[in-house]
């Protein structure tokens, strides 16, 4: 799974941190630290985080990338 947060848009509402506390953490006042490559087993929690974000800043992709080698 791959995750990216648009940190221009993120306003540190921390809803994602409640939804998926193992993958999203708010540090200090408003620094969001997140796991860009969560394990597939966290899918439900990460999906909840995507839904919970009030500014829709979180993007996730579940599909595997084609093998990381030059074509």
């Amino acid at each position: 799974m791959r995750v990216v947060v648009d940190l221009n848009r993120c306003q540190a509402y921390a809803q994602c941190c409640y939804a998926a506390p193992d993958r999203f953490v708010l540090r200090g006042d408003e620094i969001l630290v997140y796991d860009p490559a969560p394990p597939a087993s966290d899918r439900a929690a990460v999906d909840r985080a995507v839904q919970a974000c009030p500014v829709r800043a979180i993007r996730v992709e579940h599909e595997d990338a084609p093998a990381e080698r030059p074509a």
Partner: protein
Amino acid sequence: MRDGTIVVAGASLAGLRGAEALRTNGFSGRLILVGDEPHRPYDRPPLSKHVLTGEIPPGATTLPGVGTLRAEWRLGTPAAGLDRAGRALLLADGGRVPFDRLLIATGARARAWPAPEEARLSGVHTLRSRDDAAALAAGLAARPRRVLILGAGFIGCEVASSIRSLGLPVTVVDPAPAPLAQALGRVIGGFVAGRMVAAGVDLRLGMRVTRLEGDRAVRRARLEDGGTVEADLVVVALGAVRNTGWLAGAGLDADEGGLSCDGACRALDGEGHPVPDIFAAGDVARFPHPLLGNRPVALEHWGNAVAQAAHAARAMLDGPDSVGPYAEVPAFWSNQFGLTIKSLGLTEGADAVAIVQGSPRAGRFLAAYGRAGRTVAAVSVNAGRWLPAYEGPIRDGAPFPPITGGADQPRPESVPPGLPAPKVA
């Protein structure tokens, strides 16, 4: 145009988001992404932040969107030239990739230390790619006695913050009077300087490094005042240069400052005329910005790579007239020393700055920037939620200082921002 072949040169953020936008806007033809790095597109902002602190592995930031994109990937091979008449991208391995339309998204690279033999000393790093971050992280794991960072721009400061949080001694040297002075000016940069010093950074402002010394491995840096800094790891963070060298001889208006394009992201030729089938987006693109009276700028912002690539994609499919000029209000963020700094607009040429909400003493404030009585930019420090209200005033060039703060706000006092003298166009 919805079919045929579109080639994207540069497979990173702008290349990926441009390719995705082509597909979502109905492009059904052949889509080929050419990238010199062997990796699928990945995210760079974490590289100077949580990757250096060891919280995120360097290889973990592959971007969402790579899995579902229906594209052919030509990775690990740089584009080496452009045959404009024959409409083909020429690869360094001798390959030739014909296109109907080309999107150039080759971004930028870290500016190297100017003396090549000093830059080659082991222990001297730059930071742009995943591989650079891995090498730097490995260097830090060996617990250097002191890290020297050349340049107090965003990357230099973020790297300093990450390395301080590892407990390593850090010296930062910059000729400017404050960190981040180029982007934020001396006033707001001065606030950040206070945080850096409080975090234990040995900050040497108004100072230049003249030489890196060592035999095989770097040992020390010589300063212009004759002093030295003993350091066994050096990070050169002197800004970026655009990856346009491969376009030499193609007859496009390109140099280290970018590839010129028009508001519809079409590349400009040597006479300044738009070329119909070649587009550019992201860090590499130098475009006329409406907020600067259409003076050309090349941005180095994540959000610009995303938005401009989408704009270019629409122009490629529906024609330049249907999209209008690209006019996104520039936005970026930075995390360092416990601060989230966010910016909207362009501070360049600003002649006034005022704290319009919060206060530096409280560690939470919003600064507005003005030029000739108009609001041109806003920067929030640990106050991101206040920022969106300033987008309208910036877009409209509202009178400065803008009135958006709550009634509890003190009458803002405006001072010169201490920005470097504007470049003459």
